[in-house]
């Protein structure tokens, strides 16, 4: 690796556009999106439904193809980046295979990517420890709570050690208490692994608590209205949410969301 690659942005979008052709006419899902994400950033995408936050994440993952502009991931096209195992993706539902144990679920990407059996076991052990699920490898998904299942799905995304972790409302279906706990764990995991994380949410406290960079988006057409670099320290206990700095950032996010909505009504 040369010195240039350390300063190269992990994700870079320039004038990104995406229009879906539907039976009801074209839908402008993303319009003129410009964003730079650096290595080690924790970026949250927040906005009402239809603002394109999930669509943008899917573009990064090459699950959608933009219709205009440029998008690079690790300096490559999203397609190339995917083939180079650039990212792990966590969906809103855990989506574990009910016929596989937790350990076998985590092995799924490793099997597909052709890791050796010993390496698979090694990696499963490591990521189970990372998400605090040691000893649950032999259990089937239905034997675990919803929060534990989602942690297992994060372990699955981490198993092949991609630099980027893309998470699409991973805790959206969980209750507040479990969610707080998982947020805390996610920050600890991020600090340990130094991954770049893209995180879609519609919860303001969640976005502010987790992120170094908050991207506020608004719908019709989906676009970025504000990018906030968080002044909060990297070390964040849960009660940081009661500090004036936290409340100020949350306020700015709320303002951004309101501004996006205003020209809509």
């Amino acid at each position: 690796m040369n010195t240039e690659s350390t300063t190269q942005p992990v994700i870079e979008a320039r004038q990104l556009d995406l229009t879906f052709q539907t039976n009801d006419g074209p839908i402008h899902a993303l319009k003129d999106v410009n964003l730079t994400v650096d290595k080690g950033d924790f970026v949250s995408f927040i906005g009402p439904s239809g603002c394109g936050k999930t669509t943008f994440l899917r573009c990064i993952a090459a699950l959608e193809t933009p219709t205009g502009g440029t998008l690079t991931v690790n300096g490559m096209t999203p397609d190339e980046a995917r083939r180079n195992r650039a990212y792990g993706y966590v969906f809103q539902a855990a989506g574990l295979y009910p016929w596989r144990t937790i350990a076998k679920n985590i092995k799924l990407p490793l099997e597909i990517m052709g890791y050796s059996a010993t390496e698979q076991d090694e990696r499963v052990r490591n990521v189970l420890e990372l998400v605090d699920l040691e000893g649950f490898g032999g259990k089937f998904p239905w034997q675990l709570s919803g929060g534990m299942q989602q942690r297992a799905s994060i372990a699955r995304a981490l198993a092949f050690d991609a630099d980027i972790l893309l998470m699409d409302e991973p805790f959206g279906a969980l209750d507040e208490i479990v969610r707080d706990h998982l947020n805390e764990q996610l920050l600890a995991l991020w600090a340990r692994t130094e991954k770049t994380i893209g995180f879609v949410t519609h919860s303001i406290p969640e976005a502010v608590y987790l992120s170094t960079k908050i991207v506020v988006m608004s719908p019709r057409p989906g676009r970025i209205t504000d990018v906030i670099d968080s002044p909060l320290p990297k070390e964040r206990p849960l009660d940081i949410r009661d500090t004036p700095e936290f409340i100020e950032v949350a306020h700015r996010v709320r303002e951004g969301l309101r501004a996006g909505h205003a020209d809509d009504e």
Partner: protein
Amino acid sequence: MNDGFKAFWAVLTVLAVIVVFWYAACIPMNIKGVLTEQERAGAEVQPPSAKDRRDMSEFGLVLNNSFAIPATWEQDRPRLPAPHQVAVEMWETTVQKKITSKRSLIYHGWVTLSATMLGFVIGTGLGILLAVGIVHSRVMDLSVMPWAIVSQTIPIIALAPMIIVVLYSVGIQGIIPKAVISAYLSFFPVVVGMVKGLRSPDAMQLDLLRTYSASRSQGFWKLRLPASMPYLFTSLKIGIAASLVGAIVGELPTGAVAGLGARLLAGSYYGQTVQIWSALFAAAILAACLVGLLGLVERKVLKRMGMAQ
């Protein structure tokens, strides 16, 4: 425990109702024949003229000749045999006959079962192959599926003789034509169930595999096939019952040499209703056993896969 007890009584009650209804149905069904026999034996019958009796309703005859009711359950060739007559016939033609005997229901049951199993295996294999093709190729989806549906709209009783004649003309006879008819009936539920099962993974599951850049065959073996297992077993249960029907129908036009279908046909040639009913029950019991066996395999497999708790 209490629930099991309740269920046991519920099953027993339904069974008792059926048996009572059956015995009751025997009375009007058989009364005319009984009265003719009784009259020949010298009993006093109301009305005495056979011609009058013919024009009277069965219920009227029963009311006039209540003494003859027990005899309606003991006729040699009743229109509707009583449950115990069928039970006795079944006992005599299974336990009390050598298996090699041409009158043994076990022998005939085995003949039908072997054709059923062969047809089931062929039909299931064909069904799975077609389903895999249909799921993976739009051309096959458009071209094969309509024919599979049309094939099931033709009454099998009309098609079976053709299949047997055509196969006979190319020198194939014996178990194969019956198995072909069995397979013809059993492939369809397997196709429909497997297509549904192989398509059951949702968009998120498919997206997940895309993020791993998984190939289509990896997607098939790791996701689609295991996800289809519950659907497969449901289809197999329908398929094996259809297979049995196919094998029995296949035995009818061959001149009724052996098999449960042959027993049905021979029974109707000679007016042996007891024999017909015992062959029917043998077929029903056989079907129940086959479906039950598949249910057992299903539970074992799904439990082993972790999909049943």
